[in-house]
């Protein structure tokens, strides 16, 4: 990872990667999903590996953003959500157009507080 201050897009991407990993861990630990996967023939015994990858990933995320992620996760299952047609896809509130061009901060929905990801 780079030493220079992470740009906003990089940090937002890291939060997306973190959420993807959390979904994967949850699926692997969910008995029903794991049973379905096993039935298809897939093994998922490397859970320790991806938990390690999660720790490594969080080391690159600014602590205040990580805190924000944890905080939002207490209220919602989907923490980072994509903005589609200027709408937060978590709560469907309108997102200010200027947010898309915000260069320094990772932005959250003013209505529901979820972290926004611009695709």
């Amino acid at each position: 990872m780079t030493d220079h201050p992470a740009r906003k897009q990089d940090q937002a991407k890291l939060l997306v990667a973190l959420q993807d990993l959390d979904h994967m861990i949850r699926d692997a630990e969910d008995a029903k999903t794991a049973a379905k996967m096993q039935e298809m023939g897939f093994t998922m015994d490397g859970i320790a590996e991806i938990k390690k990858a999660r720790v490594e990933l969080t080391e690159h995320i600014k602590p205040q953003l990580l805190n924000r992620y944890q905080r939002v996760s207490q209220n919602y299952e989907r923490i980072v959500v994509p903005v589609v047609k200027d709408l937060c896809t978590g709560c469907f509130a309108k997102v200010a157009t200027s947010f898309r061009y915000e260069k320094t901060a990772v932005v959250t929905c003013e209505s529901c507080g979820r972290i926004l990801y611009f695709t």
Partner: protein
Amino acid sequence: MMTSQELASYFRESLCIFDLKATTKREALAEMVEAVCAEYEIKDRGLILEMLLNRESLGSTAIGKGVAFPHGRTLAVRDLSIAFARSARGVDFDSTDKKPTHAVFLIIAPPQDRDNLYLQVLGRIVDLIKDDASRERVQAASNYAELKSIIEGQGL
């Protein structure tokens, strides 16, 4: 229950590669993700690749007989996307039976996708491939029309 036609409708011609250049798992995934990102105009290909590689560390998706099913969910994609690749030479996909992989089905879905659709599609493809005759035909398919007719369950 999804019909074979519905399943086949997820296979786009531009996402079916019949002469995969890759020889390693990472290269194969990168080549296929590249195709998906070009087709769906996705900018964060790195996120998709990272998710797929993490899924592989959870357990190889090359579950034998020359076929791999890399899959997972990521916010980087908007819709359920499938890509197919065939390699005559074979890819070292870290297969459970240690044999080279000749056919790869890539299935990626957004997290908000209902579990059902994503797992249903994966399950259907795995079922199709468990059938020896279908699997051999898939591994020998040389064009999109051929592949599609196998998925649709024609000529079996």
